[in-house]
Every structure is written in C-alpha cells, then in structure tokens.
C-alpha cells in the first residue's frame, strides 16, 4: 500500500534511467546511507566496528568483484582470493618502496596489478567455459600464493611471507582507530559499488550479460568475445585486489599469502551464490550473511542452550545450523537472497491484494 510507483511519472529518459526509479526506494537508500555513516559510528562499539562491520564491507567488495565476473559476465572463477592477495601485496610494495606514496594511489595501483594478473589468468576463458574454466582459475589460486611465499621480495624478506600493513595516512590525517578505518572502508566500498552499478546498467554491463546469456548471438551483433571477457576479468580482479588491500590495511593489519587460500575464494563464491548471482545488492547481502550469521548463531547459542551443552558440542552445533541454513535458503530461493528481496518488493506493490 505504501510501496508503489502510482503517480510517479517519468517525463524524460534520464528520469527513467535512475538507479532507483521508485521514490520509496530512493528514500530507503538514503536512510540506509544515513544509518551507516551517522548512526553506526554513534552506536557501534570497537568490537563491532573492527571485527564485524569492516570485514562485512571488505567482503562485500570482493563479492562484488566476483559478481561482476561470474554473475554478470558469466565466467566462473575460483581465484578471487589470489587476486585479493595480489592487491594486498601490490599495495604493500608500492607503499614500501616509493617514498611518500599516498595510500589511495597505492590502493589503486595494487588493484591495477590484480587486474593485470586477472587478465593473464582470464586467457583460458577464451577457449573454455563453465566448470572447466573454474578449474583453470584454480591455477591462479595456487600459483600466486606459491609465488608470494617463494619470492621473499614481495614480502620484503619477512619470515613466511608475513607483511605488516603500514600506517594509513591521507593528507596527513592518520586512519588509526577502528571507527576511522570503518568510515574509510565504507566510503571506498560505496564509491566502488556505485561504479559497479553504473557499469552494469550501461553498455559495458549489457555486453557482459550478452556474453553470459548467449555468446554466439553476442558475437553476431558485434560484441568481441575476447575483449569483453578479458575486460570482465580485469575489472573483477581490480575490485578483488582493492578488497584484498583493504583486508590487509583496514581489517587484519598483518597478512600472509597463506591467508588468501582456496578457502577464502570459496567463501566469496558462497557469498554471491547466497546473496544473488548477478546482483549488486546481493553481493552485500551475501557477505553480511556469511560473516554475520556465525556471529549471530554464536550469541544465540550462548544465551539459550550454552549453559546445558558443553562448549565443543555447541561449537559444532553452530556449524551444523549454519550449513543447514545455507541449504535452506538455497532451496527456498536458488537465485539468492537478493531475488527474495525483489520478490518481496513485487508483492508489496500490490499488497494487500494478491494480484
């Protein structure tokens, strides 16, 4: 009854092309933004900012990167964590080796390194598709981690390749508290999410989706498959690389190559599957789901049955419920939580009537 576009007429194509064509959505978006930028800093404590909200944002960015590649361009990849590693180590080396390197520039350069590596490991996509491509991208996963461990230069010859992120300063202003790190991450993620949304709603995104949905037809109307696929790999890896650098600089502080293992790649893949393949919002929902749900379950366990069950059984129970919920949501909506949200909105438009 409250959510419908009745009476909202579009008088120009520009109005019709807005990201949120419905006024209620725009209001909802700005409320959410105000909450993240204003309310969260006031109410959240250090633990929440540092251990939950910042990683959710960083994983959202990585999931966004993978979603560009897998969800929009249709190329399956299991190398996301490796591209994150390239971004993290790239940014670290630019900061380390160039005096007075501004952090944001190093971040972008680190992302560009990841993009270059992404193009390289995207080359098999020109010949192979689907699961076979996923297996080919596994090569990136193992090879890059191996290179970073094997050649000490990348980690400035520290033991077992551990790097410690330098202090982040932007225009002489140090980002050293969890709150400031959260805000900086939030700004970066918002900007990149906007860029991603803009790309997928314009010709770039249409080319990706055309290649995903029907590559022969795409070719026949003049889309070059090679360029489009490699572009998707580059942009996706750039996003993952920036996420990796934020992972090191804004979240953990110290990272090692082994931290960017296949496990992390799978987590990011699960995020987009649960959140919604081919959806910007889905990347955020998926990341929040995968990061928050275990925390939530843990709290619930402790407050409810924690007193009666030994801690080791409670811990396993959490994992079982976590897995069960993932399966449940996939059965309820195989297209992810973002689709559920979309369906809810469609229902809401005609509520209280069924049709």
């Amino acid at each position, binding site marked *: 009854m409250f959510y419908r576009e009745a009476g909202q007429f579009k008088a*120009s*194509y*520009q109005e019709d*092309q807005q990201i949120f064509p419905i006024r209620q959505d725009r209001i909802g978006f700005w409320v959410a933004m105000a909450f993240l930028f204003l309310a969260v800093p006031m109410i959240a404590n250090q633990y929440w900012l540092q251990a939950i909200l910042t990683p959710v944002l960083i994983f959202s960015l990585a999931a966004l990167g993978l979603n560009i590649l897998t969800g929009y361009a249709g190329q399956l990849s299991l190398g996301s964590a490796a591209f994150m590693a390239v971004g993290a180590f790239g940014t670290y080396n630019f900061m380390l080796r160039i005096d007075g390197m501004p952090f944001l520039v190093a971040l972008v350069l680190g992302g560009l390194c990841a993009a270059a590596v992404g193009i390289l490991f995207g080359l098999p996509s020109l010949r192979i598709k689907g699961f076979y491509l996923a297996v080919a991208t596994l090569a990136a996963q193992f090879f890059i981690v191996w290179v970073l461990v094997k050649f000490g230069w990348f980690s400035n010859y520290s033991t077992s390749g551990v790097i410690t992120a330098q202090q982040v300063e932007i225009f002489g202003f140090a980002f050293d508290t969890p709150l400031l790190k959260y805000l900086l991450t939030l700004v970066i993620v918002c900007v990149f999410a906007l*860029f*991603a949304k*803009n*790309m997928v*709603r*314009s*010709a*770039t*995104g*249409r*080319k990706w*989706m*055309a290649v*995903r*949905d*029907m590559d*022969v*037809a*795409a*070719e*026949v*109307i*003049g*889309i*070059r498959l090679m360029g489009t696929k490699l*572009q998707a790999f580059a*942009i996706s890896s750039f996003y993952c690389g920036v996420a990796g650098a934020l992972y090191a600089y804004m979240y953990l502080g110290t990272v090692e190559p082994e931290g960017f293992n296949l496990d992390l790649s799978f987590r990011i893949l699960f995020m987009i599957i649960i959140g919604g393949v*081919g959806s910007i919002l889905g990347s955020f929902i998926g990341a929040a789901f995968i990061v928050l749900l275990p925390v939530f379950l843990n709290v619930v366990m402790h407050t409810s049955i924690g007193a009666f069950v030994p801690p080791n059984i409670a811990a396993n129970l959490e994992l079982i419920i976590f897995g069960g919920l993932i399966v449940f949501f996939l059965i309820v909506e195989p297209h992810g939580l973002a689709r559920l949200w979309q369906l809810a909105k469609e229902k809401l438009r005609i509520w209280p009537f069924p049709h």
Partner: protein
Amino acid sequence: MAREIGEVILDLQNISLRFGGVKALTDISFNVREHEIRAIIGPNGAGKSSMLNVINGVYHPQEGTIIFRGEKRREMEPHMAASQGIARTFQNIALFKGMTVLDNIMTGRNLMMKTNFLHHALFWGKAQREEIEHRKKVEEVIDFLEIQSIRKTPVGRLPYGLQKRVELARALAAEPSLLLLDEPMAGMNVEEKQDMCRFVLDVNDQFGTTIVLIEHDMGVVMDISDRVVVLDYGKKIGDGAPDEVKNDPKVIEAYLGTSH
C-alpha cells in the same frame, strides 16, 4: 511500392562448406540485390541455416568467394559482418534471457556506442548523453514493432511469439542494411504470422533494408519475396521469381511435393 530493387550488393560465388566429411553446402552461387526480399527455401537439412551462417561469418566456407558491397572476402568474423551492417535473427531464439526487452534491444546498438567502461562507471556527461540518444532510437524500434508494453519485462518471461519479435527488434536496432531472418515465423499461429509478415514488409519498405529470409511456410514465401533460391542436400536446385520456382519440376519433386 516505393522501393526499387537496385544493384547486387551481396554476391556468393561457388560456396562450398564442409564439416569433416559432411558436405553442408556444395558449389552454391546466388546473389542478393539491394532492397529486395530474398527467400531461401528447402527441406530440413538442406543447408539453409548454414548459408546464413556463411553470410554473417559464423561459418567459414572452404571454397568460394563472397562479395559484399564490392568487397571480396573468403571468410570473416561475425563482429566484422556486424560492423558492415549485417544483422540477423536465429532459428532458435537467441535472446539474452536474463536481460529486459529494453536492454536486449539496446545491446543491438553496441557498435554505435563510443564511450568506454570508464565513462560508464561514472555515468555522467558523455556516457549519459549517449545512453539517452540511443534510447531514443531504441524507442523508435519499440514503437515500430508495437512492443511498448513489455519494454521492462525480462525476455525469459515472454511468450514465444513476442520473443521472436524482440529478436527482430534487436536486429533492427543496429540499423542494418542487410537483415538475415532465420525462420522468423516458425511455430507461430496465423495472426502472429500475419503480424510478422507485416513487420518484414514494413522494414523492407520503410527503411529499404535488404532481407534474406528462410521460411517454410510457402504461402508466406510466395507472397512476400521478390526472388527465391531453393536448396536441397546442400545444392542449389532452383533460383528465380516465386512463380517460376513454384512451377519448376525439380523444386516440386524435392520440396513442394505433388498432390496425388
């Protein structure tokens, strides 16, 4: 009719196409004149679709030459054909299922868009102007094919007949000079066929687009085409005006059949 059939724009000479030991096309020659509607008919497996695939570069013939607008070529990539103004539709609908009707048709204009992904990421100024400019053209196509009401619908949800129409819209959005239609009326009921015939004739008449079409409905073919080429087992067995072809004993034996 206002349009006048002009010079030969596409000349196929001695085309042969093999897949391993299978001869799909053997020594086929025919031409297409500007502004005409040229039909290709023949029984199943005669090589009609292969012929279209040769024309727009999906298949590369082993022998023969193709002269398109005075330019001689043996083979080309599909995107090159697209940039020369050849568009097509497919026998089995080849739309982008996950995208809306509008996005599908907008994709048809991709070759005319000059901005790159960096402009798109900002979606400001040049990119936005270009998007709106092309949207206007796309809306003209949408009006022309009378699909205004479904422009925001994902194509996967549309019925078959409308999907065929959207595919034609996507091809038209590229403003082609040569349009290849692979069975545009297959699986349609009488009304849908009539609509489609009207659209094909209107495209030909209003935009002067040259059309090569494959169709099994003989009534349609004989009514709307200017010249017909008949294939059987990868060989050309007839070529000429509909009336000539209809009465050609070889064509009757191979394809049209006689009443007993």
